[in-house]
């Protein structure tokens, strides 16, 4: 008889160790780097220095705008797609959803480079139109993340509620605004969080598509790290972390209420 009683919680041990090694310690390291100088003394200079620079503020603003724009465009494109896919008369919806999801299976770097070349071939030069090309790359990459949660929410819409709305005198557009849209709100929020935050922090897409002509938060972290400015890079990482945490809290209420799956956070 073994004296150590086996408990199911030991099964979590490998992951626990992994978490400590690769999540908690690095996070603490980032925090430590963010608030120390080269000699290891505590300082707020990194923070004040970051906000003191106009180009850094500009980077955050551009990241925010690109993130917001990408979210809006993806929602505008993805919502009708998900709506029609989830319609009960739709034949083979899974096959078509798959078609939208499939690009996600192709290697991300390859896919982005291919998109750039495709645009170049079509006459859109990343160097000449960095913002436009970056936006196209972003939308292309994040559209599946919008369609999937929206589709999941919409397949769960109760068709009888739509009929009830029509029965009570609502024209199709009124039913859409008053019933379909509010009821798919959790899916919209979920989709938005899946697009907005990763867009803000992405750097490969802006790097490749914009030919390094524009700088998002992710690009500025990379730039600092490349130059060996670990402390500055860390403070940017902390700021981004706070931004994401803030976004999470802001959308949490909607999430909890409707309990929708499909959020990867």
């Amino acid at each position, binding site marked *: 008889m073994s004296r150590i009683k086996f408990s199911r919680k030991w099964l979590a041990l490998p992951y626990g160790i992994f978490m400590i090694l690769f999540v908690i310690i690095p996070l603490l390291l980032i925090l430590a780097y963010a608030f120390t100088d080269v000699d290891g003394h505590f300082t707020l200079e990194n923070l004040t220095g970051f906000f003191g620079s106009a180009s850094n503020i500009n980077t955050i603003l551009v990241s925010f705008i690109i993130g917001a724009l990408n979210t809006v465009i993806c929602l505008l494109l993805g919502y009708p797609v998900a709506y029609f896919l989830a319609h009960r008369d739709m034949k083979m919806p899974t096959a078509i959803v798959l078609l939208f999801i499939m690009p996600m299976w192709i290697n991300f770097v390859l896919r982005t480079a291919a998109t750039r070349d495709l645009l170049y071939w079509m006459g859109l030069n990343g160097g000449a139109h960095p913002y436009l090309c970056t936006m196209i790359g972003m939308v292309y990459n994040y559209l599946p993340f919008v369609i999937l949660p929206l589709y999941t929410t919409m397949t769960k819409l109760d068709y*009888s509620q739509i009929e009830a709305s*029509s*029965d*009570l005198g609502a*024209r199709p557009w009124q039913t859409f605004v008053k019933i379909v849209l509010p*009821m798919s709100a959790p899916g919209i929020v979920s989709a938005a969080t899946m697009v907005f935050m990763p867009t803000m922090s992405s750097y490969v897409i802006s790097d490749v598509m914009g030919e390094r002509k524009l700088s998002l938060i992710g690009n500025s972290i990379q730039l600092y790290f490349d130059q060996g400015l670990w402390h500055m890079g860390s403070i940017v990482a902390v700021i981004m972390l706070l931004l994401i945490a803030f976004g999470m809290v802001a959308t949490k209420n909607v999430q909890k209420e409707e309990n929708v799956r499909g959020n990867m956070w």
Partner: protein
Amino acid sequence: MESRASPVGVQGAIFCFGVMNVEKENVIIELVGVTNRYNDTVAVDNFNFYVKKGEFVSFLGPSGCGKTTTLRMIAGFEHPTEGKILLNGKDIADLPPYERPVNTVFQKYALFPHLDVYDNVAFGLKLKRIPYETTDRDGNKVTKYRKLTKKEISKKVTEALKIVDLEEFEWRDITTLSGGQQQRIAIARAIVNEPQILLLDEPLGALDLKMRKEMQIELKEMHRKLGITFIYVTHDQEEALTMSDTIVVMKDGQIQQIGTPEDIYNEPKNAFVADFIGESNLYEGTYMGNRKVRFLNHIFDCVDDFPANEKVNVVVRPEDVKFAEVGKGMIDGVLTEKVFKGIHYEYTMMVGRNEVTIQSTRSMETGVPVSVNIAPDLIHIMKKTIVSNVYDDAYIDNDNRVIIAGGAFDCDVTQLVPGSSLDEEGYVIAPDGKKYDFKDADVLVDVSLSDIEIIDNEEDGVVCGKIVSMIYLGNHYQVLIRTEDDEDFVADTEYTWNEFDRVSVRIPAEKIRMTLRGEVSKYVKD
């Protein structure tokens, strides 16, 4: 059109000849030749009936009978493939739901979870535009439309909530309400719009028995107070009997009977209605003529009139079988079962091989002989609907088998020529030496109900199908098997099957009676 659309209803049967037009004025909705087909299945087949203003009408029938489809066509969620739906004399068959002055109470309530009780009930009112007269700059009278004011809406919502007894619930979240409360809100949401017709699609189906009984009474009361026409869909015969002014009994997309609850209970038109409405003893009998009918091995006096020697179905309600002094009743039998049902006992009496269900308040011993009487006016006789299976589109194939309902059945082709025999090549040789080839010959096939064998295993029979109905006739079941091609086999069987069972059908070759269509000389082979 007027005569074709003549109502099948009892009220119609009474009035339609004399005071048709007077009667028509009170009609709020009328279905004329309404058919609904989905792919190849006919959900609703040529419905003709009307509903009078203020009436409480129930569509009653088992699942798949077309009752919900009919309701949905009136609501506008589905459109008839053929026919007209006349609302106040105007065809609304193609109007979308939002343009119809009818409202629906849905089976699963279909309340809007993102709105509170008040906003759910106010939903229709907020969309409503009411006409008002005004004079424009030139002094002409014009009709304009305006929204209801907040105050008007609030007043109506409060009133509606009062009717369903939930005044205090205005600001509650839908998800915090019980099933019964949600049902009331769904009713309030519909009646607040003052529809001309309120459609109710099995609204009490999700409630428990006690709640259902209470709501039945409340709905009836609401109907009385509001004066709105109610069309109520249910599969619960008791519910329909309790609440309705008129019941439309449906089965398989066809109207079986329209009438008041009393009519339908006391004078069912066919065995299906008798079996579906209330409990009943159903038998096959023979009308002897002269107001006498024979069933249960006894000749009873009765009040109905039929041609002599006609095969009939007989219905006797369990409460109409009365115990008599032993040996002095009309029929004798033995009680085999006794179940206490609260206000009465339910007995099963065996008369030979036939079962008789009896309801009585008297407590009797089981296992002893008893005698019972049935009063002549409580014996209800109906025309027997199906006497045998007849297929008029059957034909003979290459191998001298007959094709019925898509299946190739072995049969005896020599019956087509009296005294003939088969040669080794499969030709029919007549006694006079003539040779016949019956390949592709069209025949009329007739098979008795008792000659159709039902087989559990789908592979063992010739044709597969689904059991769509089963009626107990005292000592055997009459089972209706429908194939995928919509062909029916009606079989008498002593075994119990279940509705919706998939079974296959076999017919012994010698039991298939065939008549050649057309001249036999056509098939002579030289």
